[in-house]
Structure formats: structure tokens, C-alpha cells
């Protein structure tokens, strides 16, 4: 087969447009496609709707003024419970916010993945979500004898999903060896186009059956693959097997980044020091690739 889906981060960002809805995989400070996010930060893109279980990806995009609307289950760095740039954007009412229960977000992505307009759930009923948080949400009544009233969680359709995985080949076959795959599969299915950055890009993955079970979704969903060793930094990219690369998140760097939220002009200085010079300069500025990929895994 002559398929070759290899791209650069710049190629990916060149295919994005103002106003798009972009889903980002991972979870908080875990397995975010940060090298792709940094490429967006360097671009002129604006008015994005960003969807995900947010971490520094959402915080940085807010700080850089790229975001019109966030659709989120949370925006957290885990050991720093609230993302400070997200907090600033919310408290200044700079962004539209569709705040969801974590399970509702997966349900909305699943509805989109199944090409349904909505999926029913009890989650959100009897709270303030339908009144104060998301007044556009509607309920639906069961057509069966029970007559139960349920929330109709609308499909969260994505123009693009950005994911960071361990291994990919040029056909778009992938491997994900994380302790928890989170909802990357649903992001992929909910999106018209999926761009995967990876620690290791090979010509052809040809593995045994056990390894093939670590394939999170089929290659037909994948539009492009980007080689990005260390690309999740400063978030983690843990593997539970001795392949695909494995590293923890960079707590010191994340603290440095968060401290910038308390300084006047802090984001501009952070961007100047780390982002604006390109990915190679980024990796040098944070201590080099060897330092990134040997960051110890966090223990809980």
C-alpha cells in the first residue's frame, strides 16, 4: 500500500481554520499533543472551540487568545487542581464556557461518534446545569411505559481531533500503551479529521496479537501522523510496557508556567522564552529531549 500519512506539525496547523471545533485527547496533565498545541500557539488561528478533559493545552490556548469557546469536563493540572490561565479567562468572562460533567462529555462525544443527534442520560438532572450553566440543554421523555424524563446530551461533533500516542506507522496504524487510554477513541470517531502525534513513527507496524490489542482505533480514522518524540511535554506520556517511550509530567516546568499567570505580561514572557522559537528551541529551553523522555513517572 502506498499510503503515506506522515506530516509535520506545521502541515497539520496549515489545515486548520479560524472558528473550527478542535477536540484534544489526553486528560489534564496527561498525554496531551502539546507539540501540536504549541504549533497552534505560533499560528494566526483564532476563534477556536476547544473540546476536552483540559490541562495546559486549554490554559495555553486561552492565554494566547485562541479560544472563543471551551467545552470541558474540567481544566486541571491534577497536582495543581485548577489551571490558572483557564481560571483567569473564566473570571474575566473572556471565553464562552460549556462546562460539563466528565461523563457527559464522553456521552456527547459518543453521540457524535455514532452519528446520533443526542444520547439520553440522567446526568445533569436536578442540578443547576440546565438553568445556569447550559440553558440550551433539553430533556426528552421516554416513549415507553416508564415515561422517564432524561437529559438529551447533544452530540459534540469535532472538525478535528488532535491526539498524542506512543507509536504510529505511515499508514495511520497506531499503538497506545498508556495505563489509561482515556477517551482518545471517541475524540477520533467524533472528528472529521484526526491528527496523531507520536513518540515513534515507523514505516509499518507489524506486531503480535497482544501488541495489536493496544491499537486504540482503526487507521481509516487517521488523517495525518506526526513524529514528535517528547511531544507531550510538559504533560506525561506513560507506557506500561517497555516500548513506545514513557515519561512523567514535568512538575517543575508546569509550576513555572503556572507562576506566569500571576505576573503582569507573564504569558508573553513564557511564550517568548519557550514557545515562539519553534519546537527544537522549546526542547532545548526545557533541558533537552533526553531530559524530557527520562522524566520519572508520577506515583499515586
Amino acid at each position, binding site marked *: 500500500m502506498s499510503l503515506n500519512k506522515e506530516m509535520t506539525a506545521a502541515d497539520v496547523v496549515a489545515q486548520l481554520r479560524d472558528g473550527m471545533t478542535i477536540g484534544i485527547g489526553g486528560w489534564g496533565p496527561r498525554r496531551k499533543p502539546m507539540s501540536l498545541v504549541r504549533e497552534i500557539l505560533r499560528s494566526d488561528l483564532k476563534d477556536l472551540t476547544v473540546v476536552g478533559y483540559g490541562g495546559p493545552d486549554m490554559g495555553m490556548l486561552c492565554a494566547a487568545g485562541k479560544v472563543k469557546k471551551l467545552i470541558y469536563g474540567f481544566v486541571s493540572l491534577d497536582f495543581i487542581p485548577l489551571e490558572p490561565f483557564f481560571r483567569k479567562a473564566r473570571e474575566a468572562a473572556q471565553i464562552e464556557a460549556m462546562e460539563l*460533567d*466528565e*461523563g457527559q462529555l*464522553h456521552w456527547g462525544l459518543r453521540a457524535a461518534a455514532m452519528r446520533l443527534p443526542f444520547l439520553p442520560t440522567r*446526568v*445533569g438532572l436536578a442540578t443547576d446545569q440546565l438553568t445556569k*450553566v447550559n440553558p440550551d440543554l433539553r430533556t426528552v421523555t421516554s416513549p415507553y411505559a416508564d415515561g422517564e424524563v432524561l437529559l438529551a446530551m447533544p452530540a459534540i461533533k469535532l472538525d478535528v481531533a488532535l491526539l498524542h500516542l506512543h507509536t504510529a506507522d505511515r499508514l495511520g496504524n497506531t499503538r497506545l500503551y498508556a495505563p489509561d*487510554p482515556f477517551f482518545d477513541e471517541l475524540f477520533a470517531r467524533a472528528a472529521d479529521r484526526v491528527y496523531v502525534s507520536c513518540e515513534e513513527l515507523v514505516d509499518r507496524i507489524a506486531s503480535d496479537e497482544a501488541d495489536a490489542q493496544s491499537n486504540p482505533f482503526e487507521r481509516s480514522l487517521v488523517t495525518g501522523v506526526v513524529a514528535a518524540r517528547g511531544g507531550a511535554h510538559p504533560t506525561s506520556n506513560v507506557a506500561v510496557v517497555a516500548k513506545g517511550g514513557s515519561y512523567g509530567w514535568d512538575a517543575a516546568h508546569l509550576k513555572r508556567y503556572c507562576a506566569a499567570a500571576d505576573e503582569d505580561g507573564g504569558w508573553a514572557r513564557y511564550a517568548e522564552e519557550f514557545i515562539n522559537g519553534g519546537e527544537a528551541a522549546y526542547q532545548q529551553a526545557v533541558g533537552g529531549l533526553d531530559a524530557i523522555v527520562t522524566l520519572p513517572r508520577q506515583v*499515586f
Partner: protein
Amino acid sequence: MASTEFTLAELLICACADVWRDEGEVLATGIGIIPRIAQGLAKLTHSPGLMITDGEAFLVEEPVVIGAKNHDGRSYAGYMPYSRVFEALWHGRRHALVGPVQVDRWGQANISCIGEFSKPKRQMLGLRGFPGNSINHTNSMFVPNHGPRVFVEKEVDLVCSVGYRKERWPQGVKNDYMRIHHIVTDLCVMDFGGPDHAIRVVSLHPGVSFEQVEAATGFPLIQAPDMGETTHPTAEQLAIIRQLDPRDVRSKQLKDNPPGIRQPA
């Protein structure tokens, strides 16, 4: 045998562990250090059927030690990634011990924001899992700073988790699966056993009076008929707590690490 030497944190760990007594084979999820030690204590004492995780994506039958430096020696009984957490919690066999920022007389809780949602005075954690947890399975709450800013006079600023306020449950909305079991605070243990699920004090921590709890609460409280003193930790419980938390992380959870038996105010 009850011990005379224990800290308030250790008393609270034992009181928190008790929320899972007689709950059977449920997924126990304690958020924060004291609830996490408590779930391990419950599992190693009165509730061996509890399912707990390693704090990440795997089920363990031996609770993991707080503050471990590496994964050495861990063994896993099962798998519990977030996709399965959602499946399990929507299915109902879970009992979470959560830490709300505001709680009202109906047991409704807020962790999302203070002020108007559209432009919050203070953005907090967001809804997180509160809507889904609260309508699908049993929850208890841990409040280490019992005061009128937590236990508010009126309704919480933003109802994130469901409670027993009738007006919130219109015709057709099913409340069969929700249950708020206990609230453990630094002053007392409460439940919802009063008329129409009104909050009652079921036990006072050593040295705390009912009047003191009332003064720290924004809504009226009831005394349970058999209200007594919160059970002191036993020597066995304290030994297990030390084993689960060998670096004494628990001592840093409450300001000044107060003793378990406080002098009456």
C-alpha cells in the same frame, strides 16, 4: 481497644472509613489524602469487599501506600480506566467520598464556581463528576473545615450534585438511585435521617458541643436520638493507618495537626 493518643486527622480517617461499612462490593473512591487512607482502612478492617484503585487505572486488593516513591511491589487485581469508571458509576455500584466547597440543607453541593456562572467571582473546579456521581450512586462528603461558608444558609451558589430538595425533582425525573449517606467534618458526623431527609448530627467529635456545630452551620440541625461521641480509633486501626501512610502525610492535612481529643471550647 480504644487508644487515648490519636490526632484529629486519625479520628477523621476512622470516621470516613465508616461511611463504607456494610456497603458490600462497591467501588470506593475517596478524593484527597484523608478519604484515600480511609478507604484503605475500611477495606483492611470491616469492609474487605470494597474495590479500590491504585489512584490511577488499576484495581488493587492491597491498598497502595500513600507517598510511595515508585511502583515496586505493586500487584493488580483488575483494570479500572476512566471509561470503566463511568460505566461502573452509571451502573451504580460505587460509593464516593467527595470534598464539596459548599453544601446546603438539602445535601446539594457546589464545587464549580462562586458567584454567577457567566462571570464567576471565583472559578473553582467545575462540575467535574458531581452531577453524574450524585444521581447514579451513593455519596458521602468530607468537610475538614466545618463552617457557615461551607454549610450555607440558602441554596449553594451552583447546584453541582443533587440533593433532597423536592422542587428539583419534577414529575418523571427519577431519584431512585441517589443517596447521600454521611457527612464527616472536623466537628462531627452527620446523616440525612431527619424528617424529609433533614440533616442530623449523629456523633460529635471529642470535645465538641452540639451548640458549637450549630454555630458553625448556616441552617438548622437536628440531634439524632442516640447522638454520642464519635468512636475513638482503636490501636489496631492506628497501626493500619501508620502502615497505609508511613510518611505521615496525614499530619499535614489539617492546620496545626490538632489532637483527636480537643479541650471543650
